[in-house]
């Protein structure tokens, strides 16, 4: 009796997540076009990156303009370890994530003591250094030529490189990350992050070790980004430094901002925005995307009410406002 009730309560509580998960996992059954499937594959990894950034920026309020650097570490880590050292792709992915975490910790501990714009510049500088190293350390990374011949993912004997199989794996991992992030957000730790993003002094007075929590979430975001990078590497079978520039970091930020900083679900909208918008804009003009993103960043900040809020409530307000105008116009 109790178990069944508990099950139904669980379903209702997590309805949103379950619906999203089911939709995400079953899409390949309805989509056959290779182009759209590859778009979905990219969406999965962008979503992982956006989730990490949403935790860091949206929950904890820390500005990182260098997430692409960690994506790069993940991608190149996987690439080098699988092609040069013959590691199993999954092990390489884990090791690359460990490396990203280490770099994030080393960088984060001093960087997160800095205020807003200094942290932004520091993360920008780290991203640039990572990019430069990827280009310069030719013997390791092959420089601008990139690394080819990266193996696809597999589960023992089961190859996972077919588009539909890859979709399930990538989205499976992405959904796990989403679930973990949602759990974190509605926990004592999530509350602590939101508290310290609003007032570090107050948070400290309530027992929160602000430095520790900031570094922790910074490392988490780096791990998410790294795993996403590894997935990309195994999907495209090729990595080159060009994908891991500050420009891409800024695009990730744009996604999270568009989706709304207040809730993790904003990462969903944001990811869709940064994947779909460029596709649409490409039909108009091949290079319009970044311009539009830049304008959006400015515009959203101007109309922002000064505190993180999700796209949902904002849309609600708009709807009511517009509905009101229409009704008044009609009468």
């Amino acid at each position: 009796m109790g178990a069944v009730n508990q099950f139904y309560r669980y379903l209702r509580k997590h309805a949103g997540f379950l619906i999203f998960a089911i939709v995400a996992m079953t899409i390949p059954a309805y989509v056959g076009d290779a182009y759209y499937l590859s778009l979905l594959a990219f969406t999965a990894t962008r979503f992982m990156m956006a989730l990490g950034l949403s935790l860091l920026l949206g929950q904890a309020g820390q500005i990182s303009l260098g997430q692409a650097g960690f994506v790069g570490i993940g991608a190149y880590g996987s690439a080098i370890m699988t092609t040069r050292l013959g590691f199993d792709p999954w092990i390489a992915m884990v090791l690359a994530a460990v490396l990203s975490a280490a770099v994030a910790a080393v960088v984060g501990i001093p960087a997160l003591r800095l205020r807003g714009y200094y942290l932004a510049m520091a993360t920008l500088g780290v991203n640039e250094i990572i990019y430069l190293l990827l280009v310069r350390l030719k013997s390791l990374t092959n420089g601008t030529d990139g690394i080819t011949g990266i193996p696809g993912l597999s589960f023992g004997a089961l190859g996972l490189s077919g588009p539909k199989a890859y979709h399930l794996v990538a989205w499976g991992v992405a959904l796990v990350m989403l679930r973990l992030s949602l759990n974190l957000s509605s926990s004592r730790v999530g509350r602590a992050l939101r508290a310290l993003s609003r007032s570090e002094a107050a948070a400290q007075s309530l027992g929160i070790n602000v430095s520790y929590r900031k570094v922790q979430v910074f490392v988490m975001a780096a791990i998410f980004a790294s795993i996403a990078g590894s997935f990309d590497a195994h999907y495209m079978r090729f990595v080159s430094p060009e994908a891991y520039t500050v420009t891409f970091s800024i695009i990730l930020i744009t996604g999270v901002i568009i989706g709304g900083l207040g809730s993790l679900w904003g990462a969903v909208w944001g990811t869709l925005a940064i994947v779909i918008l460029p596709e649409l804009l490409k039909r108009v003009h091949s290079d319009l995307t970044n311009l539009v993103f830049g304008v959006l960043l400015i515009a959203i900040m101007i109309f922002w009410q000064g505190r993180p809020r999700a796209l949902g409530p904002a849309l609600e307000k708009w709807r009511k406002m517009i509905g009101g105008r229409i009704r008044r116009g009609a009468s």
Partner: protein
Amino acid sequence: MSSAELLQYFFSGITSGSIYALTALGFTLVFNATSVINFAQGQLVMLGGMLGVALYGAGLPLWGASLGAVAVVAAVAVGFERVAVRPLLQKGVLAQVIATVGASFVFETAAMLIWGRDAVGLPPFSGDEPLLVGGATVAPQTVWVVGLSVAIVVALQMFFRTTLLGKAVRACAVDPIAARLQGIPYGRLVTFVFALTGAIAAAGGVMITPISFMSYHSGSLLGLKGFAAATLGGLGSPVGAVMGGYVLGVVEALGVGFVSAGYKDVIAFAILLLVLFSRPSGILGTRAAGHH
């Protein structure tokens, strides 16, 4: 390394150092007036160079193209201030950083759309017959760059210390509310500061283009190095910014000489991170930048 080679690197260093100094000065001006870090500062330098090339290509004489570029970028900076900075002055650091980052994106992409991806150059101001100084060859443009930069810095210092307008700007930097209460039109002064910062940035961009060509992407590196220089010297201190610029330029050039040319840019970032992590207030720092 011979002393002639050392001198060569030194000259190379103070050349790029001049541009870093001007960029850093731009950062400092804006920061002092608004407490905002302008992430689009480097793009203003880039726009100066690109516009100079465009105007020169359209038929204007070199000096006309330079002045034109300076004027246009100053106007762009003013527009940028109105649109992306003014509305956000009360909205907190997060919004300001993101908005200026967005602006840097806009400038960079606009430049790419208008002028393409290729790097472009300008002819040197007074020919390219190299001079011989102490065994090192110095391009005449270097003399122009360093000379003009120093002249700009000195002129700015005099402006801030002696003219009424300059003093008003300094008053705003120290205490905007008190300044307002004294009847100083804060809004208009901020606009003026942005125009000034745009002009300085553009001047730097135009000057350096004959030496190291300019492309739509040059801005981000320049901006970062300018910020590194400003932080090194102490954000908020104009003297520190200039000093930081030249120190960075020389250290970078020596790094090329002693270590390797490929890692030249890493040096600037390494310095930036070093300063931020050990002494964020820089050498001559005035504002508490680091801790809460």
